[in-house]
């Protein structure tokens, strides 16, 4: 509509959201990077220490585990969860009986809090009276019954699995993409003699790629910011095997190691940006910014 005439209105309307965004996004991002270069402990003056905090954390075992696990989380969700979601989306897009019900049912766990879901899975994984172990024992497979969350090799897969299996969020996004593909493409492929499998591989996958990359980006962002289930199920143990940077950040914050906590935050932000940027760079020609724009 008209220009300039409404500049007062425009400024007034943007003021609340602008103030909030600057206070809670822009200032905090700057804060984290500045404080990560100091030895700040919450009071007194900030002493500039260069990259000492970064050198320090990269030498810590729990940080190394945390960084490794965050990458595993991001890749498991970005590739594993999105792939499973894509498989289900491709099936549902062909509108099998009950597809609407299935779509609604698959998404249900996504509206339940991560905390409640983690508690639910604790009742599944726990050593005694746990659903998984009692089922195994009932089937005579006693030797397979484990302390799933306390075992060094099963703890991380167990925690990741309880999130990975809930594909609803990305399934909905991908389903929208698959359903927006023109039907005529499938019709002509069918006339040409392509079977269902070939249609999916040669039509659906290339056509839905851009949306799949958006889903992967979001999934990786979720993996990088993962906190709840690990905090509640294992607290990062056993022996750091499920440690994440979020948990480590929380610990350092409570110990008032603000410089170190900020360095962990900075790594979290940089690694998140790198892994998302790299994936998008490899899989698309469009930039992330263009996607966020409309």
């Amino acid at each position, binding site marked *: 509509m008209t*220009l300039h005439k409404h500049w007062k209105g425009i400024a007034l309307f943007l003021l609340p959201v602008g103030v909030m965004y600057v206070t809670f*996004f822009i200032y905090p991002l700057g804060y984290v990077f500045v404080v990560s270069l100091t030895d700040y402990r919450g009071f007194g003056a900030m002493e500039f220490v260069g990259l000492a905090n970064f050198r320090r954390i990269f030498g810590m075992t729990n940080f190394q585990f945390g960084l490794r696990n965050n990458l595993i989380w991001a890749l498991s969700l970005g590739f594993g969860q999105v792939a499973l979601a894509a498989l289900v989306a491709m099936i549902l897009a062909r509108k*099998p009986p009950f597809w609407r019900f299935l779509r609604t049912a698959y998404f249900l766990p996504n509206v339940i809090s991560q905390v409640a879901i983690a508690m639910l899975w604790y009742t599944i994984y726990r050593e005694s009276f746990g659903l998984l172990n009692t089922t195994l024992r009932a089937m005579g497979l006693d030797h397979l019954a484990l302390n799933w969350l306390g075992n060094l090799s099963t703890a991380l897969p167990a925690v990741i699995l309880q999130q990975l299996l809930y594909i609803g969020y990305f399934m909905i996004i991908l389903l929208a993409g698959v359903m927006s593909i023109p039907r005529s493409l499938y019709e002509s492929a069918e006339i040409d003699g392509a079977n269902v499998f070939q249609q999916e591989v040669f039509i659906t996958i290339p056509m839905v790629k851009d949306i799949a990359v958006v889903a992967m980006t979001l999934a990786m962002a979720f993996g990088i910011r993962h906190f709840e289930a690990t905090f509640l199920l294992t607290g990062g143990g056993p022996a750091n095997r499920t440690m994440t940077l*979020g948990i480590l950040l929380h610990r350092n914050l409570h110990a008032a190691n603000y410089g170190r906590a900020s360095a962990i*935050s900075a790594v979290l932000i940089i690694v998140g940006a790198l892994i998302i940027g790299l994936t998008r760079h490899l899989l698309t020609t469009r930039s992330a910014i263009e996607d966020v724009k409309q």
Partner: protein
Amino acid sequence: MSGQVATVSPHDSVRLGGHRTPRVVLAKAAKWSVLALFLIVTLFPLLWLLLQTFKTNAEFVMNPLALPSGFHYQNYVDAVQISGLPRLLMNSVIVSSASTAINMLICSMGAFVFARERFKGQQLIVTIILAGVLVPIIALMLPYYRIIRGLGLFDSLAGLTLVYVAINIPISTFLLQGFMKSIPFEMEEAGVIDGCNFWQRYWLIVLPLSKLGIVTAGTFVFLFSWNEFVYALLLTASFTTRTLQLGIRDFQGQFFTNYTGMYAAITLSIIPSVIVYVFFHERIISGLTSGALKT
């Protein structure tokens, strides 16, 4: 074949034209196995949890797989008494409702400007705000803690509300401005001719037409605030400001070996989310769908 299929979804033609070769049967079996597997993974743990709440604790400990012998509602009485659920629920309702209302107000004002006006630097501002979706919010624990302490809002529902309003700005702005862009300009132009000022164009014309978009974005904000854990943990300390999600974490200590009582408490904590989902699932799905197709 194609003439026959024209009125049906072309996808169905695969079924209509399908030959009953072993390969087709196998593909069908594989398809339904995948769908069934995910249905089981999705619903079975929840149903199992629900079943346990109707057992006595002794029954559960004897055999966690057996069906309940009768309908024992005592667990729910225990759950409410032991966990202090009413207080937790009230705090969560206050924080989630306030966050949603304030977020909708400020984001719809911003989205109105982004969708209905043109000015210099607009695209840059919109891009910066929307890019907030990708910021790993937990990395901002320390600054949020310091800001909320600095404002004197530590351990208050107001502090938590402020943070939830802020965190949801990118997603709400994205959904609302997308929705507002799809509203035709004619009514607004008629309004301007009738003498509507800037505020009236927003309040009397665009906002009422954006109801559906507000409901969609509002559902996302409400569910986020209702389910949020990390910042509730960080920014509150006392029982009077504890939200539901923090309460759930304490169940283990409160119920100790009263497993079925704890399961009843977890079940009660899940019910509000399920109710919201039952009423608003169309909106949630359409929000995610429109988001996917716009990018």
